[in-house]
């Protein structure tokens, strides 16, 4: 009570002073003062318990420490992550709503003009990226496929599993298949990437594109083998496995193949960013960016993420904005290819 009174008194004095001073500029509130004791909504566009949720919950305590605000995690699942992304994009531009988004999927949905994508990825205010999802092509060790070359030379169609039409497992498979021109058939319609992995283990399909994180377990247990991946150079996860870029050189039109792969790689580089809506005052964004950067490096976050086997590939807000721009501004020809892939027209 007394504190409130004192605060009120201080505020009144400040107002009186500034009024009295007349010509002097009013005392601007710094961003740190603004966030102190406020509630920040952190939107997670998926149900509790998934990877996105876990990153958010791991980050929240460090973010609270850095901002002085209370961080409340709000799960808002729906439309494959679009509901949450819309919510962040269209929330009041006061800097009190932030959230993590499925960057790559949001970019592809936006490009293809999927209904319900009421956001523009390049217009978000990015605080930075938590992790990029390196894409890998995993095959079953029982499939007899040893290398990506085996797969490219196969006379019989290689069956690749995927989730829904337009999902990343599907888009990866058809786009890369289009570039390489190999004999393959994409079996899509699995309910989740878990179901695709089960089909891979059973031998119903021979391979699947997916994130490194989801293939890691199967590789360790000897069930899966990664034959190629999306990182152009220096992947710490897959140092001895040739990148798909190396195979682009052997295609009929290497320059064009490389161009498509660059665009595709940019897409996976968007990864999982943390974003605020457009229009938030610049000083608040800078404050949040600094807080996010410190939170990502705080030992308590790094240790916990390591313990939970969650990788971290931080880049700052500015670099993230550049990535988002690169991923959304495609040449018409490449854009058409991706849109066709997302819509299942290839």
């Amino acid at each position: 009570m007394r504190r409130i009174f004192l605060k009120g008194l201080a505020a009144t004095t400040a107002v009186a002073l500034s009024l009295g001073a007349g010509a002097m500029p009013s005392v601007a509130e710094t961003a740190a003062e603004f966030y102190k004791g406020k509630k920040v909504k952190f939107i997670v566009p998926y149900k509790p318990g998934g990877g996105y949720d876990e990153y958010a919950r791991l980050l929240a305590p460090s973010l609270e420490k850095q901002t002085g605000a209370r961080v409340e995690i709000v799960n808002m699942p729906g439309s494959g992550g679009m509901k949450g992304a819309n919510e962040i994009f269209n929330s009041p531009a006061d800097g009190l709503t932030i959230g993590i988004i499925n960057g790559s999927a949001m970019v592809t949905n936006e490009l293809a003009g999927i209904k319900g994508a009421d956001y523009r990825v390049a217009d978000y205010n990015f605080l930075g990226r938590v992790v990029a999802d390196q894409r890998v092509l995993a095959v079953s060790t029982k499939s007899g496929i040893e290398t990506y070359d085996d797969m490219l030379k196969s006379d019989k169609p290689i069956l690749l599993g995927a989730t829904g039409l337009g999902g990343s497992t599907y888009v990866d498979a058809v786009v890369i298949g289009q570039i390489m021109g190999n004999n393959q058939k994409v079996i899509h319609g699995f309910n989740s990437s878990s179901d695709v992995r089960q089909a891979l283990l059973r031998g119903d399909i021979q391979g699947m594109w997916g994130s490194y994180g989801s293939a890691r377990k199967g590789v360790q247990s000897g069930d899966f083998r990664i034959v190629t991946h999306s990182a152009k150079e220096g992947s710490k996860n897959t140092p001895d496995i040739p990148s798909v870029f190396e195979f682009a050189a052997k295609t009929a039109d290497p320059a064009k193949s490389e161009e498509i792969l660059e665009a595709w790689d940019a897409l996976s580089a968007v990864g999982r960013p943390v974003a605020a809506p457009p229009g938030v005052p610049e000083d608040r964004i800078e404050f949040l960016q600094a807080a996010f950067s410190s939170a990502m490096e705080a030992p308590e976050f790094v240790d916990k993420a390591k313990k939970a086997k969650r990788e971290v590939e931080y880049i700052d807000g500015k670099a993230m904005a550049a990535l988002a721009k690169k991923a959304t501004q495609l040449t018409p020809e490449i854009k058409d290819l991706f849109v066709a892939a997302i819509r299942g027209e290839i």
Partner: protein
Amino acid sequence: MTIIEGMTSGFFQAISLGVLPYLMTGAVFGLVIGVIPGLSGHFAMAMAVTFLYSMEPGAGIAFMLGAHSTVAQGGGLTAILFSTPGTGQNAATLLDGPPMRDRGEAGKAVGAAMAACFLGATFGALALALLIPVLRDVVLFFGPPEIFVLAFLALTFVAVLGKEDMTRSLIAALGGLMLALIGVDNVTNTERFTMGSDNLADGLSLVPVILGLFAVAEMFELGIRGGALAKNMPDALSGRETQKQIFQGIGTAFRHWWLVMRCSAIGTVMGLIPGLGSAPAAFVAYGHAKQTSKSKETFGKGNVEGVIGSEAANDAVEGGALASTIAFGIPGSSSMAILLSGLFILGLETGPQMLNDHVDIVFIMIFTIIIGNLIGTIVGMFLVNPLSRATSIRASFMVPVLLVIIVTGAYASDRSLFDIGIALFFGVVGYLMKVLNYSRAALLIGFVLGFAVEKNLYLALLIDGPLFFLEPIPLGLSLVTLGFLLINVVGYVRDRRRSRV
């Protein structure tokens, strides 16, 4: 580590002082979450995960899985006492639980449900233990063709459930199948029956539909009828009488041990199949209990066998559902996905590594399920008395209170206001179905299985071609399905002839 060593070590770890208190806390937490309508095992696990960072592996597993394993038990309590499914998988308990309550046998129904849960969970956990050496093969048994045929087999149980009025039941089941079509189809990316609404793009969620069909509908009926929730019971049962009934109920469940075993087996197998979930398991077990019962005609009117069958299957699902998670680190449901990330946090790796080197961890899980359900049964018994008093409170007070809880539950799972609308809409649908004598169970079975049937049919056609059902395993399962259907049709026709004469 041999299996025997792992079992001994797992058991002693589970009852050690470093683990047991967490197990008890988890079990009670899960029970309470289960009692609250709309909050499910998924929710209990997600809450539990946040506490794991500072825990030892054994304690963490016991806490998390303990919370998950008692949820269905708590949900059964709510189903019987308040005609409101505490979780989705308790929907089948609503068919015979509340009618028993109305007869003044609430205690007996709850006792039987609790004991059946415990026995079912134990069965599922032991089945998992026995399957450890062949776990990987068992999990890989189920591919799209097999799942399609099995889901279809489960669908034919509508014929058993709705025997009394086949036409109406088939209409209801077809209605359920149609409801399953709503949303963006992920095979063709086309919107189906969304009427242009983004809210329907993901299809209807199970929780608000179940809450609407059963709980909200019940509230409408109660509001219109007036009186107390327990129909013919103006006064609450005395504490002593309830206690006596609970023990009677427990005795009844044990006396029906053969039924418990069969329904638990159904639950375990359905748990093994990825993507089917536990709600259909309970209905299939209910159908089986009805089909094999000597007094089929009293099902739906308060037959304790109906309660025992569905509750046993409910908790037996757990053991089966764990199999693919442990064997391959592939989660068969959203709860198992949370369990998997919890295990990562605790520093544990599933898959062959766990089966070979850390089989004691698997046994901690197994004993957690068994002990957790035992604790749930004991604590649940103490909850019955205060809760059952509420059933004789007059409707004008109970209806608003329960409606608020139900609506909150519908909102809570996805934080979606639209889901409240869905719950209320299906409340009206459920009420009309009840009044016009259409089977809500049949509708729900169609709804929960429609998705699995359609999706797996598509995948089976893509992978094995149009004649996929001629492969040996699907062929065997198809013949079983056809045989089952034939028996039912013949029985149905014979009954009708007899009733005409």
